[in-house]
Each structure stands twice: as structure tokens, then as C-alpha cells.
């Protein structure tokens, strides 16, 4: 079972870069077994679709536009995308995550499970730092995810040096 943790976002627009910050947060604090891959996907979309196709289980970490307070974490599963119950409307013919998954499905390479962990942002100001609210969301989401992965039998350990960072 190959697990991919895919962080998406633009690092130069503060909270928009949450997914990329999240990958760095994990890399600095945890040691992952070989079956788990961490990937800073930037905002590439279809040009990194092969990363999704190579995995069995995908966690996609990104910001979402949804009603709620900044820092709230919303979870969506594969069928929310595939059956359109998550009404993400893409502009005609432009490729979004829904389209990528449908394509992979026809190619018979769609990951078995895909989970979107979406966080509500508070700002898209230009800047390479997260807002304090989303910076505080990093450890909350990482603990949730690590706990879930460890419960599923993966062995992720916290780095000894991690305490010096936090």
C-alpha cells in the first residue's frame, strides 16, 4: 500500500501555501516509513497527476473556499469528488482534481482511496509565511493525520529533534 501525502498550494501567497507548509512541517518533525511519500506538489495539477496514479491511498492537503471559520478542517472522500456531491465547478475544459481523478479512473490507475483535507484560509496576501491561525492549524492537522496513519498500521515516529523546533 503506497500512501501519498500531497501538499498543494502557492508558497508566495501566505495561506494559499498551506499544503506546502504542511509537507515541510511533517518532514521536519517525523520519520516516515518507506511506503509513505511526502510530496510538495505546488500548484501543478495535471502535470503531477502521475504522482496520484502511483499511489493506492492519497491524502490531498489544500485550502478550500467554504463557509466557516479560518483554520477549520473539512474532510472529503473519493466519492465526494467522483459523484459530484462536492460541487466543485471547474471552468469548462480546465483540469481540476475531479477531472484528474476521472481521467485516472478511465486509465484504471485511480488511487483506491483519496481524502481531501481542506482547511479554510484567512488570507491570500503576498508573503511566504502562514497567518497565525493557519500556522496553529499545522500541528492540529498533523497530529490527526499521524494518528490515523499509525492506527492503520504504519509506523511513523516523531524525530528527537522535533521538540527543539516547536
Amino acid at each position, binding site marked *: 500500500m503506497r500512501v501519498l501525502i500531497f501538499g*498543494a*498550494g*502557492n*508558497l*508566495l*501567497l501566505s495561506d*494559499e501555501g498551506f499544503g506546502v507548509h504542511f509537507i515541510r512541517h511533517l518532514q521536519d518533525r517525523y520519520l516516515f516509513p518507506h511506503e509513505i511519500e511526502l510530496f*510538495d*506538489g*505546488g*500548484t*501543478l*495539477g*495535471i*502535470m*503531477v*497527476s*502521475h504522482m496520484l*496514479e502511483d499511489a493506492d491511498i492519497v491524502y490531498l492537503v*489544500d*485550502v*478550500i*473556499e*467554504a*463557509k466557516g471559520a479560518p483554520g477549520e478542517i*473539512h474532510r*472529503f472522500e473519493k466519492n465526494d469528488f*467522483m*459523484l*459530484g456531491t*462536492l*460541487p*466543485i*465547478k*471547474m*471552468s*469548462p*475544459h*480546465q*483540469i*481540476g*482534481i*475531479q*477531472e484528474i*481523478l*476521472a*481521467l485516472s*479512473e*478511465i*486509465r*484504471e490507475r485511480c488511487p483506491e482511496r483519496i481524502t*481531501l483535507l*481542506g482547511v479554510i*484560509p484567512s488570507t*491570500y496576501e*503576498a*508573503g*511566504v509565511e502562514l497567518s497565525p491561525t493557519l500556522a496553529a492549524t499545522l500541528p492540529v492537522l498533523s497530529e490527526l493525520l499521524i494518528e490515523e496513519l499509525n492506527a492503520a498500521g504504519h509506523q511513523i515516529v516523531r524525530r528527537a529533534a522535533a521538540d527543539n523546533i516547536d
Partner: protein
Amino acid sequence: MARITLDPITRIEGHLRIDVEVNGGTVTNAWSSAQMWRGIETILQGRPPEDAWIYAQRFCGVCTTVHAIASIRSVEHALNVEVPLNAQYIRNIIMSQHSVQDHIVHFYHLCAMDWVDVVSALKADPKNTARLAQSISDWPGNSETEFTAVQQKLKALLQTGRLGIFSSGYWGHPAMKLSPEANLMAVAHYLKALDYQRMAAQSIAILGGKNPHIQNLCVGGVTTAINLENMATLNMEKIAALRTLMQGTREFVQKVYYPDMLAIASAYKEWFRYGKGVTSYLAVPELAEDTRNTVFALPGGIIAKGDLKIARIITNHQDPGLIGSITENVAHAWYEGSGSLHPWEGETKPQYTDFQDNGKYSWCKAPRLDGNPVQVGPLAQVLVAYAGGNPKVKKLVDDSCAKIGVPVADLHSTMGRLGARAIRAHLMADYSLEYLDKLVGNIAKGDRAYANPTEIPKGEYRGVGFHEAPRGTLSHWIVIKDRKIKNYQAVVPSTWNASPRDGKGAPGPYEAALVGNPVAKADQPLEVLRTIHSFDPCIACAVHTIDPEGKAIVTVKVL
């Protein structure tokens, strides 16, 4: 009369809104508006110039390596640093493979569905599809078995209700004209194309250390150590792997993408009449073949008002006429004032108003060359290289035009832009392998240099990094003062093309190209998409937030 607003028109590459007024089925006025503020250049101020490229490659979600290249060149130009031949060759391979990847993805995944009707592919006869495909190419993937399998998968997908990519298409639109067989062939290649864009990504990763964000640049060269016998460096094994990957993508580009493009162009010949717009063009020379950026494989140039005979050919990146003639105007952009500034003096001071048809309406500034709008992109590069007499380009352009049955003058069009991109992909696939040979040859001669380590001196320096990127001319403008960045401006290809009107009221290339376009159905403005997508739009801020609330994409207001 109707006013159609398309927003967003691009999702992955950032927000672009297009407004058109339609009278009697024809577009009579158009506005192009970038909906996100690109203030990201301000992040670079005060940082060390040698780090600029690391941030710059996060400007855009799609064109990461191109910003890295333009940025590092701006510092090298400012400090007059030479780049060893090996480093130039390695950069050339990265650039051309990035182009191959980008053009494949654009054609199949970002624009083919403007021309290909997926639902019609269900009615195709796979046997006839194979016959059709084999008549235009000897690619081994074009078999009846393959087409039957694709058609069955399509049917199965539609039956499960998992519409995905097919939910947003304009299927059955009167402007769709391909036969069911041509549609099935294109859909099969659309699915296959993903494997080949991946191979190009892998090539870039072998040289760049990582893809999407390469890690091997430094001021004065690359950090890719070269030792053909050492496993940790660029060695024979990696070069062999690179060769295999690049031969694979070349075969796909030349035997699938290029013939498909010719087939679509032949079926939609009327699209050589629409989408002309601004016929002044700019391209910069690319694929450096010396250490000082004065000799290039592909020339740059300026074409005024579509006249190839009087094109001014640009041979190097130090051309003072080019450097001095670029300005950005903010009369119709959401920034303070209404004047024009050279990028070295450029400011980024936002001043948002509402969308005002006759006032300010875009976050995109209006770049101008000698005060006039110009079109950039593969069409510009192909036309200046054609005008400059480049034999490879000339042959490809003449062959394509002859096969489709149109004169070169018809390339000033929506279909011409798509065709030029396929020609450029064809070229770049060849150049990738050519530079690999040159790299190996140069190393064999005993040249192991890959960087001229450079200290940033005290004092003030100005530089510009030009790069002819997949979407056109890119330039990064840097002012260095006492080892820190004092000012930084990126004038990106999509800013040239998506530009709003300027102080003189002259529309940008998107806006001009839309006027005269047909629109058969106001609520399904497929023809508008065809022309805009032909530019390969990419609004460089790359905001791509997932939006579970959903929003209407097309709004039509009857005026």
C-alpha cells in the same frame, strides 16, 4: 445584444475573467481581466539575489522552471557572468523538455476538448478509427484493440454517472465538427498523453534533481556535477536513461501530437480566419550555444503588423533596443496612476476599483513594446524564426501549411496559434536530444566545468533575464543594491497576451483576438474558449483554491 461573462476561465493557472459583447452572433467588444493581484514580486525585495530563483519558481503553478531560468539569468546579466557550455546545454535540455511537457498537456488536456466531442466518440467504429489513425501516422499505439478498449471504458464511466471530465463539456455543440472516429482517436491519445508528459517530467528531474521545482541552478551555471564514471553525479547511466525518456516523448510528439494537430486544423479550417487580433509579435532568442548568451539556436525578433518581410531579428539577450523599449502601463489596471514605467523602475502599488468597462478592470498591467501591444507565444517564436530563415522552422511551417492547405499568412489566427505550438513541440523534442549529444561531446573533449562560482559584489547593478518560455517571452528585471534585491519585476507571457487596454485605448491580444469571433449559443460560448485557450492562458499567480460551494462559470446578460 448580450453580454457574456466567463469567470473563471482558467482554474489551475489562476483566475482570468473574460467579458464579451455579442451582436448578431458575433463578438463586438471584449475585456480580459486578471482577477488576482500579482504582488508576489514584492516578496523578493531585500532578499539575496542568488536566492531569487528559488522564490521566483513559485510565481506560477505551471511554469516553475521557466521562472527559475529567467531569474538566474537576470542576476548573471546584471553581473556579467559567463555560463559554462555544459551548464548551457543542461539548461537547454531542461527548457526544451519543459516545453515538450507543457505543450503536450496544453494540447490534449487544456484545449483539445474545445474541438473534440467525447460523447460523439461513443458512436465511432473502432476499426475505422484505427484505419484513420494509421493513415496519418505509423505510431504503434493506433490499433483497433486500443480504440475498442478506450471506447468501452468511456461507456462504462458514463454508465456509472461519474461524469467527471465530461460534465463540463459542450457536447453536441453546433461548432463541433469532427467525425466520431476522429473524436475517438483524439480521446484515446488524450488518455495516453499523460504517460508522455510524465516522461518529460522525469527527464527534468534527472537533471534538475527534483520536479516540479528544480534545484540545480546557481548564479554562473548549474550545480549538476559531471563525472561520467561517478554514480553520484551526472554519469553515463543517467545520460542513457535521459536519452530513452526523451526518445519516447519525441516519438509521441512527432507521431501523435503533431499529426493530431494537423488533422484537427484540417477539419476546422475556418478557424484560420478567426482570432487574428494583434499581429505585432515579440520573441527572444533561445537555446544558448555560447557562454555569454550571444549565440542562440533559435532567433528572436519583432514583427510589426504581421509583415514578416520587415521583421527585426534579435540575435542576443543584450539587445539594447529590446531592453529599452519595454514598459508597463496601468491606465486600465488596478494600480495607482495611469502612466507607463520601465520594469527596472516598475512599481506594484494596488488600487482596486470595481470592474469598470471604460476605467480600471484588471490586476494585469499592460506591457507594451515601443508603446504598442504585441502578441507573444509559440506563434511569435515560429514566425520570427521563419522570417529569420531558420531552416528547421521553415521546413516544419511549410510542411504543415501544405498538408493543411493554408498559406503562411493564415497563421495569424486561433488555429495558427495551436499549430505553431505543435511545431514548437516538434522542434523542442529534437533539440532536447541534440543538446544531450552536444553535452556528451563536450564532456568527451575534457570540459568538466559546470559553473563559474560568483560572489555578489557591493554596489548597484541592473539586469534582465530573458527566456522564450512555452507561453512566450518571459523577462525578469532585477535591481541589486549592496548584495540585496532593491527591485524585482517579472513581465510574464500571459501579461503580454492577457493585457487590458493601455493609456491609448489599444486592446491587448486576447481582447483584440475575440472581436469578430462567432458565438452560436450565448450560454455555451465555446468559440470564445477556443480563441482564449489558443493562447494557453496562465495567470501567473496560480491561485487554485478548491471551492466546494461552486459558482456559475458562464453568466449571460441580455443588454
